[in-house]
């Protein structure tokens, strides 16, 4: 193929191969996109490698995170086939070699594998989220495991999962700016008019009132080693919640990974398998402050709209407590409607807030609850209700321990 004389006749084929490579690298590209790409390249009348690059980019990339993968795939694919140069050589005398790349290393491994799938190396999975966090990895000793949820399973767990799926969230709706027909409220001119015209005679008033919607839930879930026994069931819990309302889910240990999309899969096992494949740092150490920092910086303004409730699921056992932890907790609390800390350590009767990480975080939460059992989960569901009495004030734990 690469030896074939380059001409426009080869162009559709080559773009199709390139699209296949992109797809294998994880950029979702459909057959329709290939047709669009060919059309775009023909329309753009390419003058340089850069134009060719951005033309394909415009059609084949739909998420910012895929740009880096695209850059790498482009570099490898079109270099190897030596095609653009031939094509451009036909069209213009100069062939400047400057493919713009954002991050030369990001996604390289994955793309290389996509292009030469025969290599027998175990595949390190690099997901798009990693592209932003890969530089932040904490240490060499970080445990990079694609942990399989199924291996953690047991009979009771299966039973518990069924019960979790049946948990129901309370009706804690908040008002939105949309209106819906109601028996009373403000006059709804459109419906009043329609009724009047239909019936004739006296004006028949219809009413409307603001529509109510439950606030979104944002879950930040610690998946470090110390939480392993609980995090899996907690994710099942999140999956069950996702079916009932808008839930944004993040997991963190040494990185922060958004697994919202994965959890929207209908089948819980498939959802969790995808989520676990996505997060690379199962059972690694924790850096709570850093995870919160990443969340506050990159996600809070995106997902905390509409009066979101944040569920922070962690034991709070931070190795080194820094002023940043306090700062990030404070920021998080001020960005959401309610910050609920779910801590499995509360299962112990004699729990006392002695750990410095816990002491640093407690003053910033609205609610501090256990999450170790099904009944604790059911309690949490009830507590999310709008008019439920709050439990023990979080700061009371600090007084007890001091």
């Amino acid at each position: 193929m690469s030896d074939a004389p380059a001409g426009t006749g080869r162009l559709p084929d080559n773009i199709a191969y390139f699209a296949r490579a992109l797809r294998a690298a994880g950029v979702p590209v459909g057959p329709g996109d290939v047709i669009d790409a060919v059309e775009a390249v023909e329309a753009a009348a390419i003058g340089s490698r850069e134009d060719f690059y951005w033309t394909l980019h415009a059609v084949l990339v739909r998420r910012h995170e895929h740009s880096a993968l695209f850059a790498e795939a482009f570099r490898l694919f079109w270099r190897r086939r030596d095609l653009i140069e031939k094509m451009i050589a036909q069209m213009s005398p100069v062939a400047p070699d400057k493919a713009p790349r954002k991050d030369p290393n990001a996604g390289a491994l994955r793309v290389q594998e996509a292009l030469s799938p025969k290599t027998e190396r175990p595949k390190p999975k690099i997901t798009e989220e990693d592209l932003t966090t890969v530089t932040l990895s904490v240490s060499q000793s970080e445990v990079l495991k694609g942990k399989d949820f199924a291996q953690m399973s047991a009979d009771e767990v299966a039973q518990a999962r069924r019960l979790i799926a049946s948990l129901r969230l309370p009706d804690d709706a908040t008002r939105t700016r949309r209106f819906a027909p109601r028996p009373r409220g403000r006059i709804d001119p459109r419906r009043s008019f329609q009724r009047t015209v239909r019936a004739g005679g006296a004006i028949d008033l219809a009413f409307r009132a603001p529509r109510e919607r439950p606030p979104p839930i944002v879950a930040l879930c610690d998946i470090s080693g110390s939480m392993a026994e609980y995090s899996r069931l907690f994710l099942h819990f999140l999956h069950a919640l996702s079916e009932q309302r808008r839930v944004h889910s993040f997991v963190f240990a040494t990185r922060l990974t958004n697994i919202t999309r994965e959890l929207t899969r209908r089948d819980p096992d498939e959802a969790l398998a995808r989520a676990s494949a996505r997060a690379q740092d199962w059972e690694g150490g924790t850096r709570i402050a850093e995870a919160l920092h990443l969340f506050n910086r990159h996600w809070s303004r995106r997902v905390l709209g509409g009066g979101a409730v944040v569920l922070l699921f962690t034991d709070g056992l931070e190795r080194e407590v820094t002023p940043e932890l306090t700062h990030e907790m404070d920021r998080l609390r001020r960005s959401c409607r309610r910050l609920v800390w779910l801590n499995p350590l509360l299962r112990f009767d004699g729990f006392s807030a002695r750990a410095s990480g816990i002491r640093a975080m407690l003053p910033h939460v609205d609610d501090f609850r256990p999450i170790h059992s099904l009944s604790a989960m059911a309690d949490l569901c009830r507590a999310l209700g709008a008019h439920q009495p709050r439990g023990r004030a979080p700061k009371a734990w600090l007084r007890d321990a001091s």
Partner: protein
Amino acid sequence: MNLPTSIDATQALLSSAGYVADRALSTVVFLSLKLKRPLFLEGEAGVGKTEIAKVLAKSLGRPLIRLQCYEGLDVAAAVYEWNYAGQMMAIRLAEAGGAVDRERLESELFSERYLIRRPLLQALEPGEGGAPVLLIDELDRTDEAFEAFLLEVLSDFQVTIPELGTVRAPEPPLVILTSNRTREIHDALKRRCLYHWVDYPDAERELQILRTRLPNAPEALSRQVVGFVQAIRKEDLFKAPGVAETLDWATALVELDAVALDPTLVIDTLGVLLKYQDDIQAMQGGRAKALLDEVRSSGG
């Protein structure tokens, strides 16, 4: 004005209206015009996404129709609505006049006369000099239901009004959608568009933008402003300043008759550049001065 016929022409067109676009953006704008596909622009607030639509409308001599999205935006606010008060009045008048021919009255009530056109419907109508530029701004603020509705409008460029029939655009409008990425837009919508991530400009381009937009600013000041803004974007900030903020800041400094930056001036005017108290606090207390020293020593 006719549509540009090449990437170079597109770049020239944008710059003729005062927009300094890089090659990547020019390419995607050109393709969007050529292939008649909506252009989906994502990026941080203040990098100039909305501006592209304005500049396109201005340079092509097309009307600009803007649909500002917000949570709760519905069809009545985005496409069309009937003028109920007017219709009600017409009924009352007809009744007062004696015998009412219901059929005639009804066909009159649901005629163009009582139709209020909202942006999407306006965009389907031909403007002077060609199809209008339709800007659907901050799409991420609407809810999924409206997004799904847009999907239909953007693929067929037609809207059905039950009482009047289908309104079809003789020529599809030039559509620009923007998103600040407060949430993910559904892939189905993105698939119908060309996608581009608008990034902060590099120093050279930002300086060019400043020169174009603020020709009366002293050159040395402009260089320092750009140098400082570029440096501050690398800091760990909650919200990095966009191009809009750079322009605001430079304008403010020019108003203050500044010819060069000094630490006091920077600290006093930080509020123009940074919009979060945390960020301002982080920059005060020496950090701003250190950045400024770096900028100065690098000859900015």
